[in-house]
């Protein structure tokens, strides 16, 4: 058989090379150069707006839908029609970025859970993706709690407004405390450890719990809470690691001693079946946690314990610090360069900036105001909470809000969660002292963030 010669200039190899080369050049170039946000669309400035609203929790959608109605009734130039997309907190960020790469389909307003928001701090992601709200809050800037704007600020620009001022308090089950003959009026963490150790030996009951499972964020959550209460922090204002401090060491020391003595129980999932079992069986009868824990942790997991729980400010560290701390939060942001960007910004302002809506947010959702002046609203102090036995919880929050620490984020926060969680667990096990654990975590962190 005589091979047929290919036509000149169109050999098989040449054709394949040409096709491959063109495809590669076209797609690679298109994919990567097109990854920037597109040109800014002409913004809609009034009228009816169909707004794409992404969040991990339906309750935010309900809140903003009502806020939109209230704003319209008050004469807003927009008539918002919200279209909800619900996804996990991580996915809201991942899919927003993916849609931005695709060049369309991004949300107009997105609820960014604080742990996921850190991803947007890397490079220029926040600036590329989110509308700068700095000017929009200028009028009330002095009244906004700086500790709740700092986490969502990068290079002096504010990219999201927080849905809550998630103060940490000490939840305790009053009837169980009474039955076991202990008082919740602990003067300090040292007293908690002392009482807790004896209680665990006697009854097998713990005065708190820490997560030791596969959720790295959960493992470090309580530790970070106590570190901030003590006056330390994981990252400083410049985003530099700050865990090799006496404050961070003392906080870890309290947890380590608590875990090893049984004062603090260990659970694989702080928000799942393990913690639910611990609460239901009465193995854990108090928890230091944020305001939102009443809804997501207690009411969801142990509704039958309604009326039994109470809150108080956190027991203090003898060497200093505050009576409260922060953990959690979800910032709402408008995506930039879209025709609905302005409408999105106006919706966020209508929902999260007015005193009336901040009051309503606490009444309906239990989320604290982020404007300092609203804490002085007398109507909030009188609200009695059914789940907490009619306690006027806001009075506790009002008492400690001015002690709340500032919380700074860093793009490298996920790296820290990974390395720190491993060493915190080793400290719990007694393999490392708190100082060694923090030192090694810092070394690993620096090794992994070298690039």
């Amino acid at each position, binding site marked *: *058989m005589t091979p*047929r010669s*290919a*036509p000149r200039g*169109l050999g*098989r190899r040449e054709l*394949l090379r040409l*096709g*491959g080369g063109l*495809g*590669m050049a076209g*797609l*690679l170039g298109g*994919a*990567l*150069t097109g*990854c*920037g*946000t597109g040109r800014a669309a002409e913004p809609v400035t009034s009228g009816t707006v169909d707004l794409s609203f992404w969040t991990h929790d339906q309750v935010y959608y309900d809140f903003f839908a009502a806020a939109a109605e209230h704003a319209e009734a008050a004469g807003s130039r927009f008539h918002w029609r919200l279209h909800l997309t619900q996804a996990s907190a*991580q996915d809201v960020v*991942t899919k927003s*970025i993916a849609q*931005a*790469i695709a060049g369309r389909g991004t949300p107009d307003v997105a609820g960014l859970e604080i742990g996921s928001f850190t*991803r947007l701090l*890397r*490079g*220029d*992601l926040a600036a590329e*993706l989110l509308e700068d709200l700095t000017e929009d809050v200028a009028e009330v800037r002095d009244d906004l709690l700086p500790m709740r704007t700092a986490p969502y600020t990068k290079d002096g620009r504010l990219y999201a407004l927080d849905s809550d001022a998630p103060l940490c308090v000490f939840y305790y089950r009053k009837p169980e405390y009474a039955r076991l003959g202990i008082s919740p009026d602990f003067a300090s963490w040292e007293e908690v450890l002392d009482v807790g150790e004896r209680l665990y030996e006697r009854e097998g009951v713990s005065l708190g719990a820490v997560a*030791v*499972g*596969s*959720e*790295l964020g959960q*493992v470090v959550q309580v530790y970070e809470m106590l570190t901030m209460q003590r006056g330390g922090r994981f990252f400083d204002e410049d985003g530099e690691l700050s865990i090799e401090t006496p404050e961070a060491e003392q906080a870890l020391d309290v947890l380590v001693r608590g875990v090893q003595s049984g004062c603090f*129980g*260990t*659970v*694989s*999932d702080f928000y799942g*079946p*393990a913690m639910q*079992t*611990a609460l239901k069986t009465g193995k854990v009868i108090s928890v230091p946690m944020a305001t939102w824990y009443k809804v997501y942790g207690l009411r969801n997991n142990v509704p039958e314990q309604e009326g039994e729980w109470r809150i108080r400010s956190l027991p203090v560290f003898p060497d200093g610090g505050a009576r409260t701390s922060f953990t959690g939060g979800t910032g709402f942001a408008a995506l930039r360069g879209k025709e609905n960007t302005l409408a999105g910004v106006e919706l966020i302002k209508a929902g999260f900036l007015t005193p009336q809506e901040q009051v309503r947010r606490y009444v309906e959702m239990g989320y604290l105001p982020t404007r300092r002046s609203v804490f002085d609203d007398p109507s909030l102090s009188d609200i009695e909470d059914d789940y907490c036995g009619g306690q006027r919880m806001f009075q506790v929050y009002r008492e400690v809000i001015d002690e709340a620490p500032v919380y700074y984020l860093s*793009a490298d926060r*996920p*790296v820290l969660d*990974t*390395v720190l*969680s*491993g*060493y915190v*667990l*080793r400290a719990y096990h007694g393999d490392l002292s708190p100082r060694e654990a923090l030192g090694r975590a810092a070394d*690993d962190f620096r*090794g*992994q963030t*070298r*690039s």
Partner: protein
Amino acid sequence: MTIPPPTAAPTGGTAKPAGKRRQLAPYAFIAPFYVLYTLFMVVPIGTAVYLSTTEWVGLGTPDFVGLRNFANLARDTSFHKALGNSLIYVLVSVFVVVPAALLIAQALHTKGLRARDLFRITFFLPMVLSPIVIALVYSLLLDRDYGLLNSVLRALFGGGNTDWLGDPTLAKVSVGFVILWRWVGYLTIFFLAALQAVPKERYEAAELDGAGRLRTFTAVTLPAIRPVTAFVVVTSFIGAAQLFDEPYLITGGGPGEETLSVAMFVYRAAFERQQFGYAAAAGLVLFVIVFGISQILNRLLSIGRV
């Protein structure tokens, strides 16, 4: 085979376009494959190679950094740990799962076995279960404080405070066990098919020669199923080297990074830390390692050779 002589090209004014069409026709027929191959293989691989030389957060233009990502990987303790863990998963897969699958297949191949289909389904079932379900079930089973396993141990022996997912060594053992549980049934199917294809005459001949069970297994069965064994070993190696589901869902790579696999490292860098260039570099390293070792295994085990 006779080959028809080439048709004479028509002459005249219409000859040229028709001839060109005929010359192009074969390319048009094979074009769909190459277009798809280019789109879904060449371009992604090329993009990954390009990205591995850049720093990119997902939006905007990637910054070219040359080989810096690879240099950083070489010094990244996290990546070293992931490589070490992946090696453990590979060893478990090749030296535990594959032999276990062969033994189970041999057992299922036994003459006169009752409820053979029931056993087959039972062993195969984990393979078709959703990894999410598997993760949920195992986290409930292996939980230190409230898990079923520890509850049983507590009831039987009074201890039962083992931290199956929180202890660095036990967490690896737990992931290894889930790999075994999930994959052994699937591989058993391959071995069973191979065993059924071994000619009976060979067993009869071995019996006549006075070979015992072990001798028959090593001298008749193993050589006869060698091609299938080689295939299973190579695919198990590739699957284990790229393992993601089990450690991601059961331990999240923890405690710390004690069960982190390379695939998880890549995922984490890209989708949790927005380090796409770094992730691409790690993915490329994984690709080179898997491809290289697969080629060596192919040659050693003579896969695809008569």
